């Protein structure tokens, strides 16, 4: 009995220390794998999510400075004449991701941030350049972040289609942004390939990609 309990508590402490809570997600995304080992930045980033149905969500990772998000929504509200109220704009700061056209924004922000996950959001329109609302989101967020080094993250689902991905890239490109980071899951370099040899030469143990 005692050793059994010992082991159980060992496992428990392991999980407690190793665990990292999932950030709230509006949609579940299964990201593709890549051999890249670069860690995901957690702050100062603009994240565009593309789900398997082709819906596009926009979010800002600005935990450190919530006023940034407020600046963005105020800007959007003023330029698009959405007529958002003060509490609704405050609610945006807590909102994890936006996946509605500008016309539906007021309704979404009328719902408390915790309950937005239950709402089915249609995604931000990205179809053609005239109605590419993602472009405006990126533009406003980019200007709010000005003076900081920010990352542009794109998180796509395995089954998302290429044309939508291309439209997202276009929305960034129209803002003169050309460097992106695609969110992926880690994977080892396949044995015998160029990269494998290179990593081995550098003394990186195969399997280190998971760190």
């Amino acid at each position, binding site marked *: *009995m005692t050793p059994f*309990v010992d082991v*159980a*508590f060992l*496992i*428990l402490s392991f*999980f*407690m220390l*190793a*665990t*990292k*809570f*999932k950030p709230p997600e509006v949609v579940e995304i299964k*990201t*593709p*794998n*890549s*051999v*890249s*080992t*670069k*860690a*995901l*930045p957690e702050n100062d980033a603009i994240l565009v999510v*593309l789900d398997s149905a082709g819906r596009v969500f926009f979010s800002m990772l600005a935990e450190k400075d919530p006023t940034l998000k407020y600046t963005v929504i105020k800007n959007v509200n003023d330029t698009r004449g959405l007529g958002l109220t003060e509490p609704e704009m405050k609610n945006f700061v807590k909102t994890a991701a936006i996946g509605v056209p500008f016309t539906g924004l007021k309704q979404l922000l009328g719902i408390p941030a915790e309950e937005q996950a239950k709402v089915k959001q249609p995604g931000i329109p990205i179809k053609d350049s005239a109605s590419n609302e993602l472009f405006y989101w990126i533009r406003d967020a980019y200007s709010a972040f000005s003076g900081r080094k920010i*990352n542009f*993250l*794109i998180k*796509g*689902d*395995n*089954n*998302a*289609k*290429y*044309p*939508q*991905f291309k439209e997202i*890239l276009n929305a*960034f*490109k129209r803002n003169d942004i*050309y*460097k*992106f*980071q*695609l*969110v*992926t*899951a*880690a*994977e080892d*370099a*396949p044995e015998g*390939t*160029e*990269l*494998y040899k*290179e990593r081995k030469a550098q003394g990186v143990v195969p399997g280190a*990609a*998971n760190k």
Partner: protein
Amino acid sequence: MASIDAGGGDSGHKKGPGVKKSKKLSTRVDMTPMVDLGFLLITFFIFTTTMSTPTTMDLFMPKDSKEEDQNKAKESGALTVMLGKNNAVYYYEGQLLPDASNFKTTNFKGIRDVIIDKRKSVIAAYTGDPDCEAKARAAGKPVTDCRDKDFVVVIKPDLDATYKNTVDILDEMTINGVKRFAMVDLFPQELTLIQATEGGGPLPTTPAAAAPATPTTK
């Protein structure tokens, strides 16, 4: 384990009349609730934990430039890879022949060998480029980098290609040490070829696919 000491009772020694029963305190603690809680926490943490930390892959796109500004790839070193429906991969080397005889079909397992072979043949065909070598020396890079400078992979995902396919092929570039690659749109001729290869089944229903996807030159 969960034995509960009822505390003396009559089970102890026979005591004489009038002798007070001294209550024996047990040193054993009942562990069951604690273990229960422990396991509850373990299950909780197992379910909430995210084991694989996400990584990011860099992608640098070029500015949309005018046709004449685009750098031309040497035909001998070019490999065009097209991504189609159901994880299919099509490729051809150099220029697409009018009779499409060099248009080949493979999959994601096979494309790696194609890339490796092509790279090898480009390196083998390298005859020496003093310009490039001088530049490499000045920049403190190994001269061997020049050997595959003509090797360019052109990636053309079609409208049915998934995001996973796109990331996989970009990853393949990293894996095989391809330094020059570009992601561009399909030519109409290539699209027709892919559709013919895919069995000419019902064409994709997206309106963009119905009209031949002409390369967007902005």
